[in-house]
């Protein structure tokens, strides 16, 4: 006896209902994603979209509840940007058991976990690792080989964060930079500020910083200014939030990565609709990533 009992899959009657479940909408990345999704649906027509997020990035249970709500409301498909790439698998299982199509966006669900749950969920999302690598190469160009660099990681265990760190490390290696320290600042501006502040006193000869997201880059830049190293230390990061633009222009940030949140949502929704219509969709549909620098930030 499971929750799915008593739930019969409703035949797709009329417009398909699609749930877009994201992480914290307080993170403007997902705000953009939400906006993009809505615009896309209006453009397309013929789709009922229910978009929602969770109070904060790490609120796994909150997101589980969101998914369960969509199941209760018997939508036709769920497009999910998981807050944790393994924790959400169980709820995805529930949804699928209830006959709901599921598409995974933004952060890829842990393949092993999916396999173990006997699921095959298509992933529509960026190549975080490749994006980070390209940004890292930009830094390499700016500060040259053999310069010492520091990595600021996202929340330990967050898949996208870890992929970006991998990408950064690829770049460090390929462009011959020297990694002096890799520490977490939990995605947060002020933590980045204090962590980097200390790291810089410990390693005054550092030339570059790779931050796993822009929020941390903001804090990093401040820490650098405070130690009057603005001219000597360059930063690269990820996300391309509006607040990073001035820093790109004044050169303290060399590059960040745009991962087109709207496109992710839009394509995610399209895939979902196709699945509802009965098509089979699997595998990873890469969404574009673009390195933004002073020249192309516009």
């Amino acid at each position, binding site marked *: *006896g*499971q*929750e799915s009992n*008593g*739930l019969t899959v409703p035949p797709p009657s009329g417009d398909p209902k699609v749930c877009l479940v994201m992480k914290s*909408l*307080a993170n403007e990345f997902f705000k953009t994603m939400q906006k993009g999704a809505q615009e896309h649906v209006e453009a397309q027509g013929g789709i009922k979209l*229910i978009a*929602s*997020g*969770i*109070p904060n990035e*790490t609120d*796994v*249970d*909150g997101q*589980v*509840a*969101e998914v*369960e*709500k969509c*199941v*209760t*409301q018997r939508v036709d498909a769920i497009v999910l940007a998981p807050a*944790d*790439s*393994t*924790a959400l*698998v*169980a*709820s995805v299982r*529930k949804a699928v058991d209830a006959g709901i199509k599921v598409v995974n966006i933004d952060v890829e669900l*842990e393949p*092993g*976990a999916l396999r*173990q*749950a006997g699921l095959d969920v298509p992933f529509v999302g960026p190549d975080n690792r490749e994006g980070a690598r390209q940004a890292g190469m930009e830094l390499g160009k700016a500060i040259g080989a053999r310069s010492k660099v520091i990595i600021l990681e996202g*929340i*330990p*265990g*967050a898949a996208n964060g870890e992929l970006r760190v991998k990408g950064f490390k690829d770049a460090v290696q390929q462009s011959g930079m020297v990694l002096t320290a890799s520490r977490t600042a939990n995605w947060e501006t002020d933590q980045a500020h204090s962590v980097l502040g200390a790291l810089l006193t410990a390693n005054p000869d550092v030339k570059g910083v790779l931050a796993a997201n822009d929020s941390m880059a903001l804090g990093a830049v401040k820490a650098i200014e405070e130690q009057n190293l603005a001219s000597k230390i360059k930063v690269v990061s990820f996300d391309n939030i509006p607040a990073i633009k001035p820093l790109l222009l004044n050169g303290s940030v060399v590059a960040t990565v745009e991962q087109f949140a709207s496109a992710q949502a839009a394509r995610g929704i399209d895939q979902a609709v196709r699945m509802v219509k009965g098509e089979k969709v699997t595998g990873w549909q890469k969404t574009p990533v673009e390195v933004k620098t002073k020249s192309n930030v516009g």
Partner: protein
Amino acid sequence: MKTDVPTTGPTAPDRSRSKVLGQVLGEAGIGVALLVLVLVFLAFAPQFGTGQNIRNIMTQITLNTILAVGMTFVVLVGGIDLSVGSVLALSAVVAGSLMTWDALSPGTGLLLGVLAAVLVGALCGLVNGAVTERWKVPSFIITLGMLYVARGAAQEYTNAQTIYNLPRELTLFGTATFLGLPAVFVVALALVALGWFVLSRTVFGRLVYAVGTNEEAVRLAGHRTGWVKVSVFVIAGVCVGIAAVVYMARLNIASPILGNGYELNAIAAVVIGGASLTGGRGSMIGTLLGACLLGVLSNGLILLGVSDFQRTMITGGVIIVAVVLDAYRRRVATRLNSVITV
């Protein structure tokens, strides 16, 4: 002389009605607020009342309820346990690693895992309690320390990797139902019942309340108050261990980052349930109702489909209103009672 004070003897019918009302109000506790909330949601969110959704709510409040049961004991002696969230993570990853250790037969792994979870929880609780008591330092700060220690240990132990391929039996249990109720929720209910029994029927329970009311008096009456205070932290720890197993069963994973901020929710449930953080006042039933209120609230608001930000605001607003409403109820109750007994 006892007799010459008018006690609540046979009273005229017209009075006895207000008397009943008074007593109902007196007992009801936060239940009144909860009831109001439920009615509102029933009125405005069609799916709220569906069996499916009610089961959802049950599974969603299970964790917090279990943690709150343990927290109630701690709060009753005037303590607080901020470490539940990260100890939950530590118990989970230790248990998870045993359950997925292929050197063991699945059965043994599962068994050892469950034991380990409870043991880890109990040990952390023991440390919390022992240090607090031995050195007469605020449990707030000791358990805050434990919050960091356990979190770090969990991350170190797993190197921040999530453990997922947990034994099938466990995950089955996570979705199983018992008499139509989610099995995990039944576990929570059982713990509430047990906790209620211990608090209201046993000598130990009496001592818990007494220590929370006036520790010195209990000490001078010849009881080992230290022992009582340490035990409540161990009890809390055991509950955390059980919660960890339930978590793994529900989400099929054991991750070092889970449980963030659980402490506030657990304490909130206890306090909303009418407990006083200075100790001596509180009850299991209250705690259960408190946990329900929080669960119903978040579930209902999701169903109402209010925007996330408004949802956050409303959550806060309702918590405040509920507690104020409860304070008001208590006043009315006392007034009624004092009137009718004349």
